[in-house]
């Protein structure tokens, strides 16, 4: 099947999921017990203020109309106004999304740098000392709360050694990267154990395949067998593993953004929840959902491009 047909099919597959996501995001305001407008303004708001808000948000119209309006606006990237900041949500999201994206990309890089070599070592030296050590370290890292790791890193590298800033974004390219480093390392250490476990299992499975034995029987060095034959196959499963754990990664990013006060979508979401800024909550729920769908789609796409068995 051609790449175009594959794309079309996956998109069609994602459609019902996207619909569910829009429904879920939309219903957030309406699931809150009580009158949404009153909840947003607080119990001490005047009746006129509540009615005004209700009209402004279109909460007096029938549900179906509200949903359709919501959908249409979302497609035009109009998510309404933040109650707290009294500004249009769209542009804020765009700016913050850029920072979050940079942070997430940096984190993936770091977690791969940690996870791939260790998974290889662990799989090749299965059940030997090296494997047990790596697995113990993995368990340790798995149990470390991301925000705690972040604070330890800050304590060590920001405060004692003054290598990196303690919070916020830096100026200039070097400053920007420096300010994202500790956050990225925190998220990387948070994601790495998950990647490591799955990757190790996948490499072990590949190592027992007959074509690997055949390659050894042909007198190829262990290094060649590993780095050419095993790695190529594991690369494909690595993509799947990453794709499956995108949600986990984003969760880590949301928490760590708050520790370092990085102005991204994560800190925006948390602030909105604490401030009961429902239009923002709804918008971000929708956006995160769509991001996950896109991420899964991209993973499937690259999988199809790399694995010759699927390309046909």
């Amino acid at each position, binding site marked *: 099947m051609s790449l175009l047909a594959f794309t079309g099919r996956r998109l069609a597959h994602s459609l019902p999921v996207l619909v*569910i996501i829009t429904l879920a995001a939309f219903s957030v305001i309406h699931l809150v017990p009580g009158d949404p407008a009153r909840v947003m303004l607080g119990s001490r708001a005047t009746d006129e203020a509540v009615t005004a808000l209700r009209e402004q948000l279109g909460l007096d119209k029938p549900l179906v109309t509200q949903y359709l309006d919501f959908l249409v606006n979302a497609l035009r990237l109009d998510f309404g106004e933040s109650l707290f900041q009294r500004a249009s949500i769209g542009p804020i999201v765009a700016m913050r999304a850029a920072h979050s994206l940079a942070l997430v990309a940096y984190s993936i890089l770091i977690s791969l740098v940690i996870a791939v070599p260790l998974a290889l070592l662990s799989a090749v030296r299965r059940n030997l000392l090296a494997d047990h050590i790596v697995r113990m370290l993995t368990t340790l890292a798995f149990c470390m709360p991301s925000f705690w790791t972040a604070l330890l890193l800050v304590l060590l590298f920001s405060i004692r050694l003054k290598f990196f800033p303690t919070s916020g974004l830096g100026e200039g390219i070097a400053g920007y990267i420096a300010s994202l480093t500790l956050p990225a390392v925190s998220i990387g250490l948070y994601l790495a154990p998950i990647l490591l476990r799955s990757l190790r299992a996948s490499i072990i499975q590949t190592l027992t395949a007959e074509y690997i034995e055949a390659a050894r029987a042909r007198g190829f060095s262990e290094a060649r067998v590993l780095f050419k034959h095993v790695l190529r196959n594991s690369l494909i499963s690595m993509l799947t593993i990453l794709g499956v754990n995108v*949600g986990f990664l984003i969760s880590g990013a949301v928490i760590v953004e708050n520790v370092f006060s990085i102005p991204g979508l994560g800190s925006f979401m948390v602030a909105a929840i604490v401030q009961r800024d429902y239009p923002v909550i709804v918008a971000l729920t929708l956006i995160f959902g769509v991001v996950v769908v896109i991420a899964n789609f991209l993973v499937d796409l690259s999988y199809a491009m790399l694995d010759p068995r699927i390309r046909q």
Partner: protein
Amino acid sequence: MKPPPPGITESAWLRLNKRAVLDRRWATISLYTGIAITAVIAALSLAAPFLGLRDPLATDLMNALAPPSSEFLFGTDDLGRDIFSRVLHAGRIDLVFGIVTTYVSLVIGLLIGALSGYFGGIIDTIIMRIVDLVISFPFIILILTIAAIVGPGLAGAYIGVIAVSWALYARLTRGEMLAIRRREFILNAETLGYGTPRIIFVHALPNLLRANLVFSMSDIVLNILTLAALSYLGLGVAPPTPEWGEMIAQGQKNLLNAWWISTLPGLVIVLAGVGFSLIGDGLADRLDDSGR
């Protein structure tokens, strides 16, 4: 160990036998170490009110920001509260949260997954789509949103975490159920003609439970970490009630001059997590006796 067969060098045979049981030894050590660690923390936490510790809520500004010493094992925070006492009292909340959310989710997920796998068809497709969505969605967003809807406090945390965790068990169970169903149905169709669903569930249950139990250990860790994260962000547990994550948040402003406030509660989280994980590893080997 049997004596070496004729023609085999003693040392080679010894080496081989050692390798054969090495796996099992590591797993057994894992299991018992994990149980020991978890038992100690759980016992101390549960017994906290009766151990003669200082009141976890009592402030003592004279002794604020005191470093760990023989008087204050874990030091004090900026309000002079005894951190060791707070950590143990917090343990009751965190450990109970971890266990309750995990096993409630397990039961819910087991039922839904078993039914989905058993009935198959359109029901299975719809349920699995929802399961996939819940699993792939960033859990913290979902839980934060639910916390926003339900309101502040532990209730929101409980509901949020359960609303997300059940899906993992559902998917796990459904996979196992599909495998079993194929086998049992074939047997029934051939020999008994028409088997009762009850037989399927009685036979299936031990198998279904096995994988779920192993996974539940990791889930307890994840759920405790999630509660800690929620409390750190200002949701979940409300101060002054002690909770491990909340304590870490409290210590952040004094990170430079009083590192112990944030560091030590985190260390306890890691220790408890390692305990549960080791139990999980040990169980995984014990329950999976399918050889190598």
